[in-house]
């Protein structure tokens, strides 16, 4: 099917129908710019060393073992085999345990997505039938299996001709939004304020293609490095004016009016704009490329 290497191979099962499938990484994270850590006094590079927190002596790799915190900074050593033993045997089966209406899914739990693809020619029909049935019922399947040495839950939904399995974060890893927002002041917004804000949103409605976005940080940083190495004073960030409560209505009125002629407005951070900063700042010198490497 594909030249890529599967992260996991097993079976997808709905009711009694099953088909051989593979999970393939659908998204990767591009590396951020990293710096090298230096000693200000000597200008030398820094390196990491692993030391005993109590004796402060260097601990060689051979003496490093795994352990758990039992509370109060008390640790117990644990044999990796004992840990492995609590993971149930992998049955290599993604069985749909339940289906959730597509619009009821809580995306806050989403971790990484994987392409779910049939791995046998004989199973093409079964795979396509499952996919089409999920499309027709507007459902998302919930399945659990041992993935990356943990029992994990994935959400399975159709995507083009294939399926996507999104791994979920565990329940205890997700903070409740109700809890996180409980201290937000209860302000009732109505009347002209709400109408104006809605109007502003209406004027800013547009098309957005997440595939066509770029990261301007690297270029901006290169410009900063250049300025600093030429001994120029770096620009101080401009103070930001916050709208005061009694000016809020005016600010909204002005925004709503101003945005009618929005073509004259300079674009600041339009997510789909071309590399604005790139045209004003020179490309970093060839040597600067090495700065992408991780600091050791």
């Amino acid at each position, binding site marked *: 099917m594909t030249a890529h290497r599967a992260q996991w191979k097993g079976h997808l099962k709905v009711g009694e129908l099953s088909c051989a499938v593979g999970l393939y990484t659908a998204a990767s994270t591009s590396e951020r710019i990293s710096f090298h850590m230096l000693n200000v006094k000597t200008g030398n590079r820094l390196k990491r060393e692993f030391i005993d927190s109590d004796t402060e002596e260097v601990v060689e790799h051979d003496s490093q073992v795994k352990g*758990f915190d039992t509370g109060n900074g008390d640790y117990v050593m644990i044999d990796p085999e004992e840990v492995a033993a609590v993971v149930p045997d992998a049955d290599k089966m993604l069985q749909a345990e339940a289906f959730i209406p597509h619009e009821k899914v809580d995306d806050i739990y*989403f971790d990484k997505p994987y392409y779910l693809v049939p791995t046998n020619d004989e199973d093409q029909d079964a795979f396509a039938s499952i996919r089409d049935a999920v499309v027709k019922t507007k459902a998302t399947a919930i399945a659990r299996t041992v993935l990356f040495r943990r029992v994990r839950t994935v959400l399975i939904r159709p995507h083009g001709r294939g399926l996507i399995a999104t791994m979920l974060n565990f329940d205890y890893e997700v903070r409740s939004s109700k809890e996180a927002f409980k201290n937000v002041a209860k302000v009732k917004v109505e009347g002209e304020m709400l109408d104006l804000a809605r109007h502003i949103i209406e004027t800013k409605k547009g098309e957005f293609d997440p595939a066509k976005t770029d990261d301007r*940080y690297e270029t901006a940083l290169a410009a900063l490095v250049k300025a600093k190495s030429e001994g120029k004073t770096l620009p101080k960030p401009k103070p930001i004016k916050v709208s005061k409560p009694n000016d809020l209505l005016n600010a909204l009125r002005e925004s709503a009016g101003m945005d009618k002629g929005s073509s004259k407005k300079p674009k600041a951070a339009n997510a789909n704009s071309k590399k604005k900063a790139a045209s004003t700042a020179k490309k970093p010198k060839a040597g600067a490329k090495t700065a992408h490497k991780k600091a050791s």
Partner: protein
Amino acid sequence: MPASRPYWRGYLKLSLVTCPVAMTPATSESEKVRFHTLNEKTGNRVVSQYVDSVTGKPVSDEQEAKGYERGENDYVILTDEDLEAVELETVRTIDIEKFVSRESIDWIYLDTPFYLTANEKIGDEAFAVIRDAMKAQDMVGVSRVVLGRRERVVMLEARDQGIVVWTLRFGDEVRPESEYFTGIEKKGDAKGISALETIIKKKMADWSPEMASDPVQESLIKLIADKKKAKKRSGKTKSKASKSDDQHESNVVNIMDALKKSVAKELKARKAG
């Protein structure tokens, strides 16, 4: 779950309306049972420290600096203050430039969620106006913000009393689906589909967080608790060391067996249910 410290503080802007906001991660590993590295000889934790690569001496925090490698062994030192001066307004401000329907942004682009709230009383009303207007229009906002030395494209969605900020993956971070999906059968078998529809409808359920529970973590917590008890016990009966060691070992084996069985049972129960 404990409230986390703001990960980012800055401003939320819609046209001429600006308010101070704070952002915290929506996910946290704080409750996950995690391994630590220990020194086998002392049982103490192993921690990492920076040393000068030439002199081998430990370096204090104040002596540490970030160096941007301009050329081979040629660094420009950048302080945190310098980095603040990067000429991108997105370092401090989430300026909502555009609004789109939620459905127009595919799930595959969602990377990491954050919770955004007003950070000072002065911004409470402005924050509420932006949030409620997005809700009323049933739209999500699109903007950018610098997080962790990358300028991320973000999606803003009103939720409860706050706003969820999702960092979005860049186009080149999502692998082209055609490389995986081309060649998959276009149409399923009609009879098969209708049979599957019946099964799916029967198994329709509401989402609940327990669906994302972690049975292995539950077992790990038990394992650690048992280890702790065993450690205490062996400490108390030091004089009869050899005897208690034997006992301890056999105990551990039994516990392991029991745990394995209970996890297997639980999984079965889940599948059956």
